């Protein structure tokens, strides 16, 4: 693990966007360690050596600490109209297709096939040839030794676009205005779960902390993991990652009432499901993104519990329809992105971002996330921007003093 990091990660920026060091043009072959599972589309994290995958959005990868660790769960709290969170889910699934992962999509509202047909098209001509990290054969090592070196950059690009399934690059860019070609999509295995088709008309509800709908979904995921060997039973050579995308969990269409009631009758249904999902993820080569319409959940305690049962949690707050949409300070952005939680996996300390104050913008070829640069002028945006470590008594004394002043003033009038 150390060898991998020192060889390929010296001088590498966390954003994974620049080229790898010059050593990839030599014939040096890194000795692949037996512990390192070299699955396309994954790499060990720089911070802690965990195996990570890209979320499909390179700026989001950077924000959550390099990527999404295999075996963990990413929670995305939906924006009000579910426009940007749905886009993130599509990027996540598209990344799975491009990397050749097995994709699982569960939804209750939109048929999964519709979502899959609407994935953004990957931008292919941006991909440089760099494969040393995965221990794959580089351009120089192939039998084309005698061919022209000028064109080496294009040698690894497949002649036909459809053969992209084993792309070894970490993190791709997508064109949001085009949809992914059908051949590309059909080259990977895709499993779906559409609740209206799975839920029986009559349900014999035994008392259980988890509802029928979530139980069926959990069983479906468990069966898929067992059948395809994601729990480690598959032979080493053919190991792959399972990407699970679950749309709008907790919404009433999942037969859940946490979005309708303040004291729901099935308060622990979604959380029990997430617990079971965590158990499945921790013991298999899977990674999962879940979107939840948190703005509909009225009981704050439930949302806290949901967040704690996920590993990484972000929330999207779009400006659309709010007064911020016309505010000139926000004109460069589509909304705010809050990092609610980052996981600490196999270590004590979690990856703390520099700032939790981020804004996003969905451009045609990129979903960009940037640091919020205008809170100096905006009074109600001080949350997240550190005020520096204040010691508590000083603050209390100050407020007590202020209260005293106002009290005196009020009584003198």
């Amino acid at each position: 693990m150390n060898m991998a990091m020192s060889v390929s990660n010296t001088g590498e920026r966390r954003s994974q966007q620049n080229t790898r060091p010059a050593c990839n043009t030599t014939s040096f072959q890194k000795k692949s360690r037996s512990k390192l599972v070299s699955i396309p589309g994954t790499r060990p994290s720089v911070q802690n050596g965990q195996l990570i995958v890209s979320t499909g959005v390179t700026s989001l990868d950077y924000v959550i600490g390099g990527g999404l660790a295999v075996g963990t769960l990413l929670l995305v709290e939906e924006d009000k109209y579910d426009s940007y969170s749905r886009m993130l889910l599509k990027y996540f699934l598209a990344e799975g297709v491009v990397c050749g992962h097995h994709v699982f999509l569960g939804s209750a509202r939109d048929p999964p096939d519709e979502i899959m047909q609407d994935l953004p098209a990957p931008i292919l001509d941006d991909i440089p040839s760099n494969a040393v990290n995965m221990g794959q054969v580089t351009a120089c090592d192939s039998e084309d030794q005698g061919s022209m070196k000028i064109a080496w950059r294009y040698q690894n690009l497949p002649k036909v676009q459809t053969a992209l399934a084993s792309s070894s690059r970490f993190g791709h860019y997508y064109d949001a205005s085009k949809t992914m070609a059908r051949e590309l999509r059909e080259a990977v295995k895709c499993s779906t779960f559409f609740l209206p088709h799975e839920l029986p008309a009559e349900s014999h509800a035994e008392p259980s902390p988890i509802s029928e709908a979530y139980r069926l979904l959990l069983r479906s995921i468990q069966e898929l993991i067992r059948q395809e060997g994601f729990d480690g039973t598959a032979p080493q050579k053919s190991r792959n990652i399972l990407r699970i995308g679950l749309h709008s969990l907790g919404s009433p269409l999942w037969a859940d009432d946490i979005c309708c009631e303040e004291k729901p009758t099935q308060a622990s249904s979604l959380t029990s499901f997430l617990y079971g999902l965590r158990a499945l993820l921790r013991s298999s080569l899977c990674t999962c993104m879940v979107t939840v319409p948190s703005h509909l959940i009225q009981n704050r305690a439930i949302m806290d519990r949901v967040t704690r049962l996920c590993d990484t949690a972000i929330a999207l707050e779009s400006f659309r329809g709010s007064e911020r949409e016309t505010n000139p300070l926000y004109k460069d952005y589509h909304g705010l992105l809050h990092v609610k939680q980052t996981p600490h996996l196999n270590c004590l300390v979690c990856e703390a971002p520099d700032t939790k104050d981020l804004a996003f913008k969905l451009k045609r070829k990129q979903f960009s996330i940037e640091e919020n640069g205008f809170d100096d002028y905006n009074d109600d945006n001080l949350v997240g921007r550190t005020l520096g470590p204040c010691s508590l008594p000083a603050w209390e004394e100050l407020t007590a003093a202020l209260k005293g002043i106002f009290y005196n003033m009020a009584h003198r009038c």
Partner: protein
Amino acid sequence: MMLPDLGSLLGFSTEKIEKGDFILLSDRNADASFLINHFLSLYLRAGCKVCFLGLVQSFSHYSAVALRLGVNLVQAREQGQLVFLEGLKDSVGQLLQQGPDSEAYPMGFLRGSQTDLRSLFRFVQRSVGGAGEWSPSILLVDDLSVLLSLGVSVEAILDFSHYCRTTVCHQLQGNMVMLVRVGEDEDDEEGPELLLKALTHQCSLALSIQGLPTGYCRDIHGQVEVRWKERGPGAAGPGGALAQKKLLQYKVHDKGVSFFARGTSSAVL
């Protein structure tokens, strides 16, 4: 070396372990799981028999963290010093109601047919009992509030903690450490707050972790409030109120945690 920091903060040492203590860890808007890992390594080093209910993470996670703190969980488990319940492992089978229904499964409450945590308590009883070369017996729970997320009622959890306390702290003269995580809203009358209040009343030492009230800071991860009940002959006051109190700030490192008085963090000085 950070571990003596926590030990010296609390007056603990590996040579001398207090008996009959119920330590309550809680966090609000922060993550107190580093504390439970510290206690685990502290007690294992002191040669105690430890029963750990790891309900939220896999065994390999705790093992990796413990290695950084200098303790080998795999070895401890093999030697019989550590009894570890990996809650996640059996949970899916129970949630999906696969396999036979029996009280032998500690996570059997997930089936829904049981309304209390009897099977979990029986597991604890089996694990901490039996005098051996390791003593005293310690029970660690990470964490108690996840049981609320799994549909267990507050009463059942309080019953469970009461039974455990009677067994571990009074009968076996061991210690019990439990972690409870609550949300941001203090007025919320939901389960976690109720649970926290009831357990705070019963415990002998309470450590509450909170985020900084002034916002997020990269160099200070939060503040910890330590409250002791007084021990000794003069301690039997009305209700046995938690007497001593200390408020400190902390920062979690890769191999430990450092505590410092407020305003003295390296970010300021």
